[in-house]
């Protein structure tokens, strides 16, 4: 591994993960250490039982059905964005450990095809939605409520995804080589194997990892904390 790749795709990954986890822990502790208002200002109709409230909170957070009523386009885009994002996240787990049950069912060729089709599709879906989000922010009234953070996040996400798509559609490196890299990071000995080190696509990988690092580091300080906060706030709704 050259020094540059080692810094970005090695050292910086640790830094980013550290900032992400410490930052999120800090943020969540901060929320929980701020006292709740001593008033129950939930909104009706609300479930009468505790478990009912929790179930409603999960439904409100994961499906947010009310938004479908008032803004179907946004609802659809938001679901597409988050579902694609979630599946892409799961897809990345293959880089830590191969999904052996699927491989034994489909064969290793079949697995590669499946990964290409699903990864490719969701990669494109999420790109389209992010571009839609970004364009929307330049139109009224959205631009009047947007702040630079909103554009920054969308641009960062778009860049991460674009580099990811680049790796998927133009890469000549097999998943096993990427896995070797991820494994090396997990073992605190970041390195590229020969196939990756000799491919020009490694620059795209370094760029992808670099951008993802930045996104991770900014995550706990941004509105992306809604990942956790949405559940907590929706619980207040049914309180």
């Amino acid at each position: 591994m050259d020094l540059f790749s080692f810094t970005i795709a090695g050292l910086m990954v640790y830094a980013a993960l550290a900032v992400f986890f410490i930052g999120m822990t800090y943020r969540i502790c901060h929320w929980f250490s701020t006292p709740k208002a001593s008033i129950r200002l939930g909104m009706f109709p609300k479930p009468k039982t505790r478990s009912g409230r929790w179930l409603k909170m999960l439904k409100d957070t994961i499906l947010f059905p009310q938004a479908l009523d008032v803004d179907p386009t946004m609802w659809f885009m938001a679901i597409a964005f988050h579902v694609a994002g979630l599946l892409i996240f799961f897809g990345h787990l293959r880089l830590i450990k191969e999904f052996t049950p699927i491989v034994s069912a489909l064969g290793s060729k079949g697995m590669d095809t499946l990964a290409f089709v699903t990864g490719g599709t969701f990669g494109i879906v999420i790109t389209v939605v992010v571009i839609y989000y970004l364009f929307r922010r330049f139109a009224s009234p959205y631009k009047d409520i947007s702040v630079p953070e909103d554009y920054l996040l969308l641009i960062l996400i778009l860049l991460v995804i674009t580099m990811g798509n680049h790796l998927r559609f133009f890469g000549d490196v097999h998943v096993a080589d990427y896995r070797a890299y991820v494994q090396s990071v997990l073992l605190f000995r970041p390195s590229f194997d020969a196939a990756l080190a000799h491919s020009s696509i490694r620059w795209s990988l370094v760029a992808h990892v670099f951008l993802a690092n930045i996104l991770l580091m900014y995550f706990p300080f941004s509105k992306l904390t809604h990942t956790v906060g949405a559940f907590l706030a929706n619980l207040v709704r049914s309180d």
Partner: protein
Amino acid sequence: MPGKKLETLAGVIDAKMNRQLKLYLDICARCAICRDACHQYVTTQDVRYLPAYRAELIRRIYKKYFTKTGQFVPSLYEGRDPDENLLEELYDVMYACTGCRRCMYYCPYSIDTTWIQSVGKAMLLAAGKGSEMLTQLADAAIDKGKNIDLYKDIMRDVLKTAEKEMQDKVGDKEAHFPYDKEGANVLYAALAGTHSILPAAIIFHMAKEDWTLSMFEAANYGYFLGDAAKAKEIAGRIIDEAKKLKVKEVVVSECGHAHRVFKFFYEMWAKEKLPFKVSSILDKVSEYITDGRISVDPGKIDIPVTYHDPCQVGRNYGLFEEPRAVVKEICSDFREMTPNRAKNWCCGGGGGLVAEPALEEFRKTTGKLKVDQIRDTGAKMVVSPCENCRLQLDTLNEHYKMDIEITSMIDLVVRALKT
């Protein structure tokens, strides 16, 4: 404005901080799904009334003063100072909100924009820029609390005619309005004017309720003003009266925000648990009918009738079916508005807007959705169990020449009451 003053004003956010508020300020995605939830934005298309924008006015100060990244790079969040410009904008925006919480209903994170805006009102008050009209009304109410003995006799005098009307209606010359009755079951907190006293008195009499009439009106302009201390003092007049008379229950008149204050806010402000129950006259009416303590003529009214869910009765208190059941029993041609119940449009008059003459034109414009909704039902009568809504509906009725009758629940019940 000097830096010190700006800091003091920004400090209001910190002083009012709690977990909900922090979440709301941290997580809004500025997705603008709340856009079409607010009748004021929908009817004016003015971005200042877009709920997320209202919240953003406070959020930008919060980011600049109270978050690490915002202190470091304020421009990332368009961090702002609470300067003259911002305060002016706050005034226009915060005192326009009706507190309907329809935006909260639709927000995917259930962000309560009114909760954020209450900080804005507190900031305006700290800067000495609260609403003058609401301040005057609130101060007058507090004043009355201090000099109640001067008012008692006047009030009894004024109510003599109403008392006579009640006697005629129930056919009992001995029926009186009970005042200062110790140990009564119910203390009824009415509004200024006999329209909220007489029908309630008739209903209480027919239900053989052991009740007494409060000397104070339930309306609370301190709450609209956003001044918790004043609001607490105003509500406290009735709370003290109830404690003194040792009643079991305080029943609040058909006034959405007043009931909300007693039911939810007072205990938070006063940091005490109230020794009696708080309910709405709507709860009592349903209860009396269900228990057979009063009965009404089914189908007494045969013109088309619709029911307006006041935000503070429906979405914010949870009475959807009970009042409907009463209206449906009395009216043979009942029609629902669309949308209704939790999704109902605000009338446009809540939040103290009806008390502010400067906002009358604004109320007419922003009430247009309600007008269309009512017209679509073809109803000739609208039942609305909230004084604020009724005043607004009166304005709309006249302005848009709707030619409808607007009535309260207790009036409706008395019209159909079997005596």
